[in-house]
């Protein structure tokens, strides 16, 4: 962490004294270039490759990063050079990072961009014009850099949004510089080239929108329906996915393909369960039964400890966190499904497989209700049967079961019901009428 933090102190694109950001001229130059990713004459000063070289990133490391990005995007290895070409000629796109109702967890993730410094620098070379948590200026100077970006290059910047947007009480639950976060999102994302939401709060409201939340929190896509939004949910999102999304855009000039919830398929296209390193234990029926038991020490499946991997779409097992060091299940804790819609409500209780039915006491499980239902029906049947038996005995109406003589047989003809006008007798019993007697 220390390395990342010190390394990145340089590229924060604003002067320490709160004056307008240094890279302003370049931004305006890009603004004039139209579509930001177009080669734009590969103006040497700005190109990412030179920027990297100036920061001591070798070409080799850069190409390795491009190969890793191709892998992350599930592209054939041959795309590595194409990505390298695109990145090395890409002009720097201004980027603003908004924070609403959030815990800055995604900012923390962003500051720890893995694939060391390179990805971080790629993000930084996007010319980070505004980021409340890590920008140097404060107050009016900070807000000025935001409004400068929007006015200088409308439709030419990337908006990254972290945190939910409260809408209750006219959005007054989240004010920034005296302005509701909602209006800020509407303006910034409405004019952005594209919007990337990072973290679950910006995706669908996340924790602030969980049951009981009073702020009417919503995700960005719901607030700005017309904007071009890519969602990278997660608590926090994996910065690798953010990098890959931007790289995809810089390379192909288009956003990666997304699912119905706006999440890129390359990161959210597969069930976490299917990529999990403990999956073999699941299929074998080997489960951790309590924390610290033998199965836990052997690294068995966390299914019975409430792991939500089987219903979560994310690439955590393959990408992992903190420089590909680990991820929750590897560390011995079940997945809580943080990339899924309304996960705080949907996936809880986190330590049980099944949700508890609503409308009952909070700790009443579905099985208790089910067993109660079955038991009640069984008890009722026994009681009813007893009463019926006694009544029948009392009434004494014991009709003889067997009657005299041969028993004539009625077999319905053609399956007509009375109204259908089926002839009563003649047709051969087509519908199983030839059943043995």
């Amino acid at each position, binding site marked *: 962490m220390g390395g990342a933090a010190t390394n990145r102190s340089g590229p924060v694109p604003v002067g320490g004294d709160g004056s307008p950001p240094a890279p302003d001229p370049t931004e305006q130059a890009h603004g004039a270039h139209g579509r930001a990713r177009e080669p734009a004459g590969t103006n040497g000063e700005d190109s990412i490759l030179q920027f990297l070289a100036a920061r001591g990133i070798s070409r080799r490391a850069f190409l390795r990063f491009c190969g890793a990005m191709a892998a992350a995007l599930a592209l054939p290895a041959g795309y590595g050079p194409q990505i390298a070409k695109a990145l090395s000629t890409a002009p720097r796109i201004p980027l603003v990072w908004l924070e609403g109702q959030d815990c800055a967890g995604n900012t923390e993730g962003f500051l720890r961009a893995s694939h060391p410094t390179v990805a971080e620098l790629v993000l930084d070379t996007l010319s980070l014009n505004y980021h409340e948590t890590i920008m140097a200026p404060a107050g009016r100077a900070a807000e000025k850099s935001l409004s400068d970006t929007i006015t200088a290059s409308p439709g030419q910047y990337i908006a990254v949004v972290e945190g939910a947007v409260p809408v209750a009480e006219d959005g007054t639950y989240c004010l920034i510089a005296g302005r509701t976060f909602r209006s800020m999102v509407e303006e910034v994302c409405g004019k952005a080239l594209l919007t990337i939401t990072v973290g679950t709060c910006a995706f669908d409201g996340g924790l602030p929108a969980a049951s009981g939340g009073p702020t009417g929190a919503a995700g960005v896509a719901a607030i700005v329906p017309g904007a071009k939004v890519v969602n990278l949910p997660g608590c926090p999102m994996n910065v690798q996915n953010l990098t890959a999304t931007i790289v995809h855009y810089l390379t192909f000039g288009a956003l990666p393909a997304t699912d119905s919830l706006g999440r890129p398929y390359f990161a959210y296209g597969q069930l976490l369960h299917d990529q999990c390193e403990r999956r073999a234990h699941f299929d074998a*029926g080997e489960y951790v039964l309590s924390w610290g038991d033998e199965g836990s020490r052997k690294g068995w499946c966390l299914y019975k400890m409430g792991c939500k991997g089987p219903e979560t779409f994310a690439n955590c097992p393959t990408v992992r966190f903190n420089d590909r060091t680990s991820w929750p299940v590897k560390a011995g804790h079940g997945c809580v499904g943080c990339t899924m819609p309304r996960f705080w409500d949907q996936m809880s209780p986190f330590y049980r497989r099944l949700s508890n039915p609503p409308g009952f006491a909070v700790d009443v499980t579905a099985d208790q209700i089910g067993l109660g239902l079955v038991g009640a029906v069984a008890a009722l049947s026994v009681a009813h049967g007893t009463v019926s038996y006694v009544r029948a005995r009392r009434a004494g109406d014991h009709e003889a079961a067997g*009657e005299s003589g041969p028993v*004539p047989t009625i077999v319905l003809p053609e*399956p007509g019901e009375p109204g259908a006008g089926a002839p009563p007798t003649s047709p051969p019993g087509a519908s199983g009428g030839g059943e043995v007697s």
Partner: protein
Amino acid sequence: MAEIGASAPGLAAPDTREPVHPFDALPPNHPPLLVAQPWQRVRVYVWEVPVRITHWVTVTCVIILSLTGGYIADPFLIPAGGETMGIVRFIHMLTAYVFVASGIVRTYWLFRGNRFARWQAFIPTNRRHLNEFVSQTEWYLFIRRELPGILGHNALAAATYMVVFFLFAVQTGTGFALEAQRGATVVTSLFSWMNDLFGVQTVRLVHHLVMWAILAFMIHHVYAALLIDHIEKNGLMSSIFSGFKFATRRDVAKARDGGIELEEMLK
């Protein structure tokens, strides 16, 4: 059609009881009709082959699905080795497809089967059918002593089966929706919208609770069948194996789904 079945054991003496008006429960303008030998029992072919087969396939599937599903929800065996969960899930899905196939056959038979199997047996189309809800309920509550005359499903049972069919459909839909997460197939993708609309865990909870509801129904179903078999002594229990019920001529004529015209089929 009219065939003489095996002779029943019992008395050979002629029936001396008074003939009765079988249609005393019919609308007043209905001409009264007499049935000869009203207390004589006749065999009525009620449950056709597809009905019986789908019934027992469904029973088998529900038991297998409940056991394997219960294991999937909460794996209670910790095996020494092998691929227990993998096998159990495979059986669960395989059985699910058999279950659905059986449901499709039975649904087809709602339109093709005899009067006891058709959709009209389940959905009230006349006042007599509607009134039977009340009289059958009264019978269960010990308010009424006489069972409503019926050869196939009584109104209450038929309505219950409609609910059960619905629960089966819910189980099928939610089950396929859950399966669709693993990578939608042509079949499962038809149901994956449920996951988006309700949330996967809600779908899972419904799938689980409906299993319990179906098991509760099974208990009630077996009990009610035993009870009515005991009261009516018309071979109800054996009818789901053989297809035949043994009803008196009076009951055949009086039954809502019977009628005097069935007598015509007796030779």
